C-alpha cells in the first residue's frame, strides 16, 4: 500500500438544498483507487452514486471533504479525467468522427493529428466504417461506444463511467460489458464504473464497493474480485460472489 493512490476521496460529503430542506446525498465518503485499477461502485437508484462520480469529475463541488488526483486537489473538470454519460450525450449535429475528435479539437490538436487519434479510438471500440454516421443512425450500444471512444480520445488518466449501459437491453448490456473489458485490457486506465447491476459489477471490477440503499449514500462493503479475465457468468466463484452480494443487498430492500 506504499503506492500513492491515483484518485482519493477524503471525507466527501454532499447535500442539496431543495424546498428549504437540506437533503444529504453523500455521507463522509472515503475511497482510494490505485493506478489502472478497475473499481465498480454498485448501488441501487437514488444512492448517491452519480453525485459521487460528478464530484470526482469536478462537475460538482462537495459540501465538505476533498477529492485528490495524484495528490492534487480537484477543483473542476479537467482533461485528465474522462466521463462517459448514462444518456450518451453525443452531439447530434456531429458525426461519429466529429464527436470522438472533439476532445483533441478543444485542446488545439491539428486536424490531421486529431483525425488519426479519433480513428484509432473509433477502431478500438469497434465502430470502423461508421465514422461519418450521425448519432441518430446508431443503436444504443453503438452510441455508447462513441461515448467511450470520445472519452478515451482525450487521453484521460482516469475514466469515469456513469451507468453507461443503463439504457441498453439485457443482451447488449452483457456484450458491452465484454467489450469494456476488452477495451480496458487493450489500453489500461484507472476506471471508476458506476452501476446498479450486480453481474456487471462482478464481470468488470477488480474491486466492488457497494452503497447503502438509501440516502445519504455511504459505503456498505468492499469486495475484491480476483477472478481471471475474461470472466464467465456461470463460473462457480462468480455465482458465489453474486450470491453473497445479492444476499447483502436483499437485507436493504
Amino acid at each position, binding site marked *: 500500500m506504499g503506492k500513492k493512490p491515483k484518485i482519493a476521496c477524503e471525507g466527501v460529503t454532499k447535500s442539496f438544498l431543495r424546498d428549504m430542506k437540506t437533503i444529504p446525498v453523500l455521507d463522509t465518503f472515503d475511497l482510494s483507487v490505485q493506478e489502472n485499477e478497475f473499481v465498480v461502485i454498485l448501488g441501487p437508484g437514488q444512492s448517491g452514486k452519480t453525485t459521487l462520480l460528478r464530484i470526482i469529475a469536478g462537475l460538482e463541488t462537495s459540501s465538505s471533504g476533498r477529492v485528490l488526483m495524484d495528490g492534487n486537489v480537484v477543483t473542476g473538470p479537467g482533461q485528465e479525467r474522462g*466521463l462517459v454519460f448514462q*444518456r450518451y*450525450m453525443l452531439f447530434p449535429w456531429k458525426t461519429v468522427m466529429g464527436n470522438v475528435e472533439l*476532445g483533441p479539437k*478543444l485542446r488545439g490538436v491539428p486536424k490531421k493529428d486529431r483525425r488519426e487519434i479519433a480513428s484509432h479510438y473509433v477502431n478500438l471500440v469497434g465502430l470502423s466504417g461508421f465514422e461519418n454516421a450521425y448519432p441518430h443512425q446508431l443503436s444504443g450500444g453503438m452510441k455508447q461506444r462513441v461515448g467511450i471512444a470520445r472519452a478515451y480520445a482525450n487521453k484521460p488518466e482516469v475514466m469515469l463511467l456513469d451507468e453507461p449501459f443503463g439504457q441498453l437491453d439485457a443482451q447488449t448490456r452483457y456484450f458491452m460489458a465484454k467489450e469494456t473489458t476488452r477495451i480496458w485490457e487493450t489500453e489500461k486506465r484507472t476506471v471508476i464504473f458506476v452501476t446498479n447491476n450486480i453481474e456487471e459489477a462482478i464481470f468488470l471490477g477488480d474491486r466492488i464497493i457497494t452503497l447503502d440503499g438509501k440516502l445519504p449514500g455511504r459505503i456498505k462493503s468492499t469486495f475484491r474480485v480476483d477472478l481471471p479475465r475474461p470472466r464467465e457468468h456461470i463460473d462457480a466463484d462468480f455465482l458465489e460472489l453474486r450470491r453473497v452480494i445479492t444476499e447483502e443487498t436483499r437485507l436493504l430492500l
Partner: protein
Amino acid sequence: MSTPAEPKSRFSIVRSCITMWGIVRAILKNRFVLYVISVVCFLYVWDFIAVHRVFGSYMPRLVEVISKLGSMMAEPLATKTLLEHVWASLSRVLIGFLLAVVTGVALGLFMALNRHVNAFVRPVFDLLKPMPPIAWISLSILWFGIGETSKVFIIWVGAVVPCVINAYNGIRLIDPELYDVVRMLGGKPRDEAVEVVMPAAFPAIFAGIQISLSSAWACVVAAELVAARSGIGFIINLGMNLSEPSMIVGGMAIIALIAWVIALSVEWLERWLCPWKRELLNG
C-alpha cells in the same frame, strides 16, 4: 359436361372486372395522379364560378388573369412594370425581415443566457407579443409617413416575435449535460458557446426564421394595401378601385407563387445547413 363453358366465362368476366377495378384503384391511389386530379378540380371549380357568374362579374377566368399579368409585365402601372412592383415588395420584405432576424435572435439569445435581461424584457414583450402586426399600421403611418420606413416597420413588428421566441426556447431547451461534455473534455466557456449553444439552438432559430419570413410576407401586403404607390399589395388595391378582378387575382397568384418559392428555398437551405436533421426526417 353439359354446360361447363358458360359459368366459366361468367367467372372470367367477374375476375377481369375485379382486376380492372384493382388497376383503377391503384391509379387512383397514386400520389401524382391525385395531385393532378386535385389541381384540375380546383381549376374547374374556379372556371365554373367565373363562367356562371356566381359572384357577378367580379371573378376572372384563368386566361384573363394570365393575359392581365402579361400586359402588366409590358405596360407600366404607376410608372412600374409588374416585375418592378414585385421587387418593390420583395425588397421591403428583405429589409424588414433581416432587421427582425438580427434584432430578434440577438434579443432572444440575451434573454435566454441572462435571467436579468429576461426579467427586464419579458413583461413588455409578453404584453406586445399577442398584438397583430397589422394593428400597428395606422400608428406606423402617422409616425413614419407613407414611405418605405412605415412598411419596413410593420414587417419588422410581424417578423421579430417568432425570432425572439424561438431563439429563447432553442437555448433554454438545450440539455445542460451537453455543456458538461465540453467542460469534461477541457473546453472553456467560449467552447461551450461554439460547440453547444450555437449548433443546438440552430434548428429552433431556423424554424423561427421560417415563421418570420412568412409573417413578413403577410405584413408587406397588408401595409401596401393601406398606403403605397408600388408593390403587390398596391396592385391588388388598385384592382379593387378600378373594378378589375383579374388584376386582384393576378396579384394574389403572384403572392402565392413567391411564397411557395421562398418556402421551397428555405427548406432546401435547412437541409443543407442541418444535415443531421435531414436524415432524421427521411429515415
